[in-house]
């Protein structure tokens, strides 16, 4: 389907299908890569949301995961390593009407770009941040990642890692995020659901996706292993509005594979975008015509 045809669907109020959001570009991923499932889950979520592809900006950094925008029909922006969040925030602030998605990997999001996450969370700009966490650098062929476990042997940790991994869930909870969820392509329905919910959530939404690397990853982290090890938060009776409990469960990252919504703020704080709208409304009356701006510089004692 061409982008124009897909977009035309909005005008005719036709219901979108996941396929409307899939481009004809062939993914570069290895057969069996978890990221295939993630792009499917995202397109399913977008079909349910019902916004046309041209109203969506899909931003990414660098890494296997960051190829995703090109595999959709949205306006994609495959940027530089680690900087997808600042760029996505600029897009959303420039045009608040857009639906802004960000795809990232563990290296992009928690190593080179790790400094941006806390600020995206505290600004609470209404974007959805999906991190494909495979605990390895796949694109560069198997180096240690910030979420690789201690002791892990890779080509850059020949004798085993002697540092602790980042805990993305706990970090983001600690930064004060209002929507934190985790999924795996082993549970496609659940993954699409938390992505859709994240998009609908008014504010910054973080979704950690355990997306296994079939080439450089470890067998106990492959999709099959996920299927047996994952545990839905719903099934253990977790109340997503319970922040303390969510934080406690987040600590089990790396040992347990919880899926579903870990934390959803029952009283979402106002977003940065709302603040911008209020400020624009309050100040627009005091604007002088642009060509009169130099009058600001008339001297007065």
């Amino acid at each position: 389907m061409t982008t124009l045809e897909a977009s035309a669907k909005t005008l005719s109020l036709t219901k979108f299908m996941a396929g409307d959001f899939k481009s004809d570009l062939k993914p570069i991923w290895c057969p069996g890569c978890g990221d295939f499932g993630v792009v499917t889950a995202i397109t399913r979520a977008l079909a349910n949301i019902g916004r046309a592809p041209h109203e969506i900006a899909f931003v990414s950094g660098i890494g296997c995961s960051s190829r995703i925008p090109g595999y959709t029909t949205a306006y994609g922006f495959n940027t530089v390593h680690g900087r997808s969040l600042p760029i996505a925030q600029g897009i959303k602030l420039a045009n608040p009407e857009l639906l802004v998605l960000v795809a990232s990997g563990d290296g992009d999001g928690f190593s080179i770009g790790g400094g941006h996450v806390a600020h995206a969370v505290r600004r609470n700009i209404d974007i959805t941040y999906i991190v494909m966490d495979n605990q390895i650098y796949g694109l560069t062929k198997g180096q240690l990642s910030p979420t690789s476990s201690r002791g892990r042997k890779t080509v850059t940790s020949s004798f085993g890692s002697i540092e602790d991994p980042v805990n993305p869930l706990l970090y983001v909870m600690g930064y004060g995020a209002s929507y934190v969820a985790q999924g795996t392509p082993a549970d496609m329905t659940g993954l699409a659901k938390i992505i859709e919910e994240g998009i609908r959530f008014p504010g910054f939404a973080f979704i950690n996706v355990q997306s296994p690397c079939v080439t450089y990853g470890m067998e106990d982290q492959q999709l099959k292993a996920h299927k047996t090890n994952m545990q839905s938060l719903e099934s253990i009776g977790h109340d997503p509005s319970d922040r303390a409990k969510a934080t406690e469960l987040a600590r089990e990252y790396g040992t347990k594979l919880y899926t579903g919504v870990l934390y959803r703020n029952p009283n979402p704080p106002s977003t940065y975008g709302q603040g911008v709208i209020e400020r624009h409304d309050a100040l627009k009356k005091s604007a002088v015509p642009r060509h009169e701006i130099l009058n600001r510089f008339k001297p007065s004692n």
Partner: protein
Amino acid sequence: MSEDLIIGIAGSGGDGVISAGESLLTAAALEGYHCVMTKSFGSQIRGGEASCRLRLATQPVLNPNGPLDVAVALNWDDFKKFGAELPVESATIVIYESNTGVAPDKLPLQGVKPAVVFSVPITAMAAEHAGTDKAKNIVIAGLLAGWFGIGRESMLAGIRKKFAKKGTTIVEGNVRAFQAGLDFTVANPLKEDRKLSAPQSGGQTKLLTDGNDMCAAAAIFAGCTFFGGYPITPSTEIMQFLDREIWKYGGTVLQAEDEIAGVGAVVGASFAGKKSMTATSGPGMSLKTEILGLASLAELPLVCVNVMRGGPSTGMPTKAEQSDLFQAAFSAHGDCLRPVLAPTSVADIFGVTVEAFNLAEYYQTPVIVLSDQEIAQRKETVDPIDTSKFQIIERRRPTGQELVNYTRFKITESGISPISHPGMVGGNYLCAGIEHNEQGRPTASGEMHARMNEKRFNKFNPLKNRRDLFTIEGDPEAPIGMVSWGSVAGVAQEALRLAQAEGLQVKLLVPRLLYPVAETVYQDFFASVQRGLFIEQSYQAQLYRLVRMYVDFPAVVKPFAKSGSNPILPSEVLDRLREMVVAIQSSQQQPEAVEN
């Protein structure tokens, strides 16, 4: 009478040096004088040494440099820290605080014996009349108003306005302190009348501002609605001005978590279709480089202002230098061309910034504006600017027809492809830092990469013929040619005037467009030149070397360059020009060997 007065005032941070200078500046501007004021500080946040230089004249002021006509020292230790920034000569009138305990004939100025020296109990006068030594600045203003005939009524009005909220007692105390300064000058008159002549343009309302505020105002005028940045000296005032103004126009200022995020947000906003800008200085520019490369490859418009300071690394954050030209031209990896523009003055930065937005939008490219600390933070009178003369250019959007099977990076004759933005039906494409084909799809094809490079370079060809981005002054056939840029161009302009007054045949080329190098403009300029000089503020003489990469000019064209914070004086340039005249004469008598 004086036509041109240079006043330098120095003291400790709390001495009111800057506010004395500012009240004098505002008063002189209101009276119609041409004025420039520069400030200079130690690196302390509060306290430490502070100084300002004012140049007030009946004719347009081309630069703030030159030896002081008047030096005001609140204490000598601080005054001396400014060294060559506040040069005292025997003709300088020296006014200093008598409580420094220094005898008028024993001033701590090496090898200089100023003829006219006033020891004034400034602090005591402030305490006596205003009841606080905080009024030292008011006493100084009174002294300068009295001796040099500047802005008496206007300054009194200013004092009344400034202190009105603090009550009658304080207002009257400050008025008395000002009067005490005036009275001192009546009791101790200058032997020679040095009062500034009446302004030629009396009554005409000039603007008074600094380069950073002017740059920000130009951005508003050009239609900028997004600014992302991070505080860094000496560029921060651009963000501060825009934060006060841009929201009124539906725009946004994002103070980002770092320099990279600042320019990242700007690239995002530009992708989303908005005119966007960032501003920074050296270290921030280094950090932003990767994302500027992204904007070049993805062909996204943005303006990046680099207010240059001394470098490398932290360098000298509060001092001007022109040493970031190589970085501006070459710092991104890969084959890449980004236009670089430089303003020469506070007035000039308006047009240059508007031009930067126009070039960015037209060529779909990042454009770098190389301002510098001096232009950025000096306050200057500016003649009213007729904004109706400026054209505002918008990026070329795709037509309805072009949106059918939209091809974002279509290779066109001009190299410029219509650009869509999210929200535009049918304009969907993949924007990326990875090399792409015409549709925007990632490619690793060498052939496609070569074609895209060619497109991205060729689109700038017309830019090199923009002769309106260059000014040439003086006799077009002159055998001596000067080239200068940025804030130093004003020094060269003054040197040109001085040389012309002596009957020397000299011309001056001032580029606003530094990169790409406009080969033919320089070739034409150097055609008549037998001796030449590039005048610039960097150790390496960066423009000289950059132009040499592209233009074969005669070996007799040399750089005259100094590291930042070492003022280049018009008189020094004039000396060089005189030497060149002699050299030309002697070479005509005795043909010199061909240099290799």
